[in-house]
């Protein structure tokens, strides 16, 4: 009786597990029909990237936007309501642009030159109607990098002395004894 009771319990556990897996799998199936978003297109964003959300471009006049970001090696992007390719009408003076399709929209990413801080600007036209997006970017020094370098510097400088003398100690003693 007890053995018979154990089997259904295990079966119940297995079924519960399968149901759990199924529950996990269902949202993925539901998300499948939309355009796919690739991990590479959402990784590497700057820690600070202050931009307007979902800029709606107008075909008949330029749309202006501002961008404030940290220069930590990452990008800062403005998502538009267009899905077509972009044409760079005015390049930034202190960085690069990456206009890429992310899911159903086109995102305009700005990557400042390493070490650059200050203001920069660029203009991109998005197809099919060549809707113009003018961006004024403000690039700040990375607070994290500054903190990391100041915090990391003392241990790096402090670490070698304990290790080095311990190994050299016997030889140094011999050497110093011989010299003496």
């Amino acid at each position, binding site marked *: 009786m007890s053995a018979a009771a154990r089997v259904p319990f295990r079966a119940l556990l297995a079924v519960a597990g399968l149901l759990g897996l199924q529950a996990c799998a269902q949202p993925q199936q539901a998300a499948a029909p939309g355009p*796919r978003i*690739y*991990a*590479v*297109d959402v990784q590497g964003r700057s820690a600070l990237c202050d931009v307007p959300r979902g800029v709606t471009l107008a075909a008949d006049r330029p749309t202006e936007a501002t961008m404030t970001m940290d220069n930590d090696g990452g990008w800062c992007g403005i998502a538009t309501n267009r899905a*077509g*390719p*972009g*044409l*760079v*009408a005015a*390049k930034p003076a202190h960085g*690069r*642009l*990456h*206009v*890429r*399709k992310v899911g159903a929209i086109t995102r*305009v*990413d700005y*990557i400042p*030159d*390493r*070490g*650059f801080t200050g203001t920069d600007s660029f203009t*991109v*036209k998005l*197809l*099919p109607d060549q809707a113009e997006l003018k961006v004024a970017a403000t690039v700040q020094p990375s607070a994290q990098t500054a903190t990391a370098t100041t915090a990391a510097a003392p241990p790096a400088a402090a670490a070698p002395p304990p290790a080095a003398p311990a190994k050299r100690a016997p030889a140094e003693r011999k050497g110093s004894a011989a010299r003496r």
Partner: protein
Amino acid sequence: MGVFNAFQPRPRRLPRRAGRGASLFAAASLLLASAAPAAARCANEAEQSVFEVEALKSELMVVGITCQQEERYNAFMQRYQPKMVENYRAFEQHFARTRGRAGKSATDAYVTNLAQTRGFEAQKLGSDFCPRNGGLFDEVMALPGAEALPAYAAGKDLIPESLGSCTAATAAAPTRTAGTAKRGRGR
């Protein structure tokens, strides 16, 4: 296939090399990238565009071959044939002017390094590479004309920071030329 031969006799062989030398080149690239303060750009805007269009061509070639979409690459080359020929001429002229007699080998080395870097990027993306980057053909073929190609290429960030363009390319070429030339002759 004929289009590959007509426009790119050397790059046609690149994807085979890309797999073998990718890891070595990647290590060198990472070292260079960490040492460089910022990606070098051409002082002349027109020359910068020449490098960007060349990088776009290289990327499309890697996508075409890696993703078995050679016909789409051929269609791109056919559509933009005059522009691509003109661009490659300007590209060669840059190296001829800055590197003199070594211009040809410097051009080849740069093109090789570019394709290897793009190939390495393709490897990093793994199975995502083809579905994601295959869309480049749709985009490039949707452009209004050849005159839009430089503006399109400028927004693709395809020049590796480790390679740069113009000055950096000129400086980087000699060290890599020897290695690539040896590998090329060996096959």
